[in-house]
């Protein structure tokens, strides 16, 4: 239990409502003291539970009510340098609602809404995700293409590096769930900043968004054909893309990482750079048990790849949160990728399966795929 709460509890028999309110306005929630985190809730409820997304911990943990007051609390030990997302489950009058922590202003957005965020000492929001007045902003274009492989029209948003020259050719990165990377991982700002700092080579980034990612990103032959045979030629025709696999990358998170690895595997030698974040690389050593039916084709693909690992790219960056259920799959994939002769970086973060975790890895991942002339440019 945090010291602040312990002090409050020592006066539990005489506590008044204004004192509790003052305590809450002073401390907010959660109270973080080193690795000890106390979550608080104040209000009418018959039960309060913490719903978090930390794999291996019980995902619903009950708060304790303080005497006859309406203050509820729960203390967890969380390792330093952690960032966790959570919600509160409030039970009242026979109804249960899932809400963000009303005492915590820190939230993170994702395609499904927003969660409350708790961080422990050692975690810091990277400075390079904030707009930098010195960084020249990149350009933006969009186009649509007809896909025979997938059937129908596909829309692509394209990031063009600042001061792009018609005489120069650039590396290409295709990002699956691209719109989410832009909205929830600040990827345009991050690109502007990292290119400005010469940490990442100026590159063209195609942000793709699937209308049916659960199918198309799940080791889907049609989607990989779209990427290798339709999207890539269309991008090469429209933009000055540098030749060679070393200048073409694929990236994605969760199923997007599966789509990346699958497309590279399907077209070996075409995409030399892979950025795989928290990939849903489901596999089995025996039987066919999967966590979700959409992972069936993934299971087939990953099992096959594990049986016959091949060098599908030259350089790969793999990251995963240690609080994700997928950490086991990603830790298992790493040595297999490495064994094929690819240059692989594997990074674990004390974070979960969320966009801010993926955002926080962009500097290393992009810097690994397309390193800029960091040491050489002094403008």
């Amino acid at each position, binding site marked *: 239990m945090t010291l602040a709460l312990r002090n409050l509890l020592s006066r539990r028999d005489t506590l008044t409502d204004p004192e509790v309110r003052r305590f809450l306005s002073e401390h907010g929630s959660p109270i973080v003291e080193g690795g000890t985190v106390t979550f608080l809730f104040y209000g009418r409820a018959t039960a309060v539970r913490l719903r978090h997304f930390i794999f291996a911990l019980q995902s619903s943990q009950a708060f304790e009510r303080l005497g006859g007051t309406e203050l509820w609390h729960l203390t967890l030990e969380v390792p330093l340098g952690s960032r966790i997302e959570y919600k509160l489950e409030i039970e009242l009058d026979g109804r249960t609602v899932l809400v963000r922590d009303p005492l915590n202003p820190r939230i993170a957005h994702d395609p499904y809404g927003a969660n409350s965020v708790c961080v422990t000492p050692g975690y810091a929001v990277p400075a390079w995700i904030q707009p930098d007045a010195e960084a020249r902003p990149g350009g933006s274009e969009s186009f649509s293409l007809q896909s025979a492989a997938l059937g129908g029209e596909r829309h692509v948003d394209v990031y063009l590096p600042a001061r792009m020259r018609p005489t*120069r050719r650039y590396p290409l990165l295709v990002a699956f769930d691209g719109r989410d990377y832009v909205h929830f991982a600040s990827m345009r700002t991050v690109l502007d900043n990292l290119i400005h700092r010469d940490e990442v080579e100026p590159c063209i980034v195609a942000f793709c968004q699937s209308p049916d990612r659960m199918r198309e990103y799940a080791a889907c032959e049609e989607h990989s054909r779209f990427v290798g045979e339709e999207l890539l030629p269309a991008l090469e025709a429209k933009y000055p893309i540098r030749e060679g696999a070393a200048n073409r990358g694929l990236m994605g998170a969760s199923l997007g990482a599966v789509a990346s690895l699958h497309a590279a595997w399907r077209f070996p030698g075409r995409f030399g750079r892979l950025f795989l974040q928290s990939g849903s690389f489901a596999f089995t050593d025996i039987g066919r048990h999967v966590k979700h039916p959409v992972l069936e084709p993934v299971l087939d693909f990953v099992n096959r790849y594990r049986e016959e690992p091949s060098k599908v790219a030259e350089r790969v960056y793999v990251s995963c949160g240690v609080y994700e259920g997928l950490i086991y799959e990603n830790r298992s994939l790493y040595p297999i990728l490495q064994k094929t002769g690819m240059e692989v970086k594997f990074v674990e973060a004390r974070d979960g399966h969320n966009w801010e975790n993926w955002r926080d890895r962009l500097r290393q991942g992009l810097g690994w795929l397309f390193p800029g002339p960091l040491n050489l440019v002094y403008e």
Partner: protein
Amino acid sequence: MRRIVLLGSQRLQPTLVQAVESVGVTGPIVAITAGWEEREDEIDELRDHLGRRVLNLRLHHRGEEVFEKDPELFRAVRDRRQTLREAHDLYRIRLDRAIQALRDLRTHGGPHALLDPAMLAALDDLRRLDDWHVARMAEIVREWDERWRPSERASLAPHLRAIEAISREAETLAVAGGNVAVLLNRLRLFGIDRTFSRHTVFAWSAGAMTLTERIVVYHDDPPFGRGNPEVLRPGLGFVGGVVALPHWHRRIRTDHVNRVRLWHHRFRPLRCAALDDGSWAVFGDGVLRAVSNGVRTFTEDGRVEDLVP
């Protein structure tokens, strides 16, 4: 006396015109912006800032033209670049070990009577490695020059004549920043050190680095691993006795006294000249003198202080 002015970054804090007026040069200025590579023609801002005639030498463009007309030289330059890169990679392997040895000794602890001599010896190893690498890079370049004799090639001749003619139109040369390796290669290819040996020179950022006798590149916080400062190659040597460190605020961590101290001891007898954006210092009589505020050095005991001769 020839005057050479080293300036910090000009992008956000342009002070070149103040430096030019302070030194008192008149007439047109020849500009080298080859470090900007394909953007070397974008000198409108520079021209507006200086408010006088600017003659752009266009060394990047000239180089591309030479390579197009002289594929043999192009291949030779490309091969040399590869050789230099590989030699630099080998240096990095040794550098990692040498710097790690210093770190390990520092954290090892023990009686000063034993530890201090070991630290000094490790520092000497590092300094010898730097010296060896600079000499090796110079040797590679010298051998290449002797073999290919670029100044005698027909493909370069018209450009060398044009550069010579432009050099006679002005008494002042301005060398902008950008990619320090690209800039240095172009300066050397076109013999700028010979043609402009008597001009007053203003050089900022990478431009300032190329004029020194030893180019050191640095970034303490790269996306991966530790960012060890590296000696790159010898510069043109117009400015002796200093290592020019532009952009140091953004690239060098000075939060620990040992880091700062290492800069001093590793590169002595050269003095570190850390140039704040917009700062400037004049080199003459073998000494660099700060003229504006913001020219710093790293001291023996690990402090950052104003550079005084």
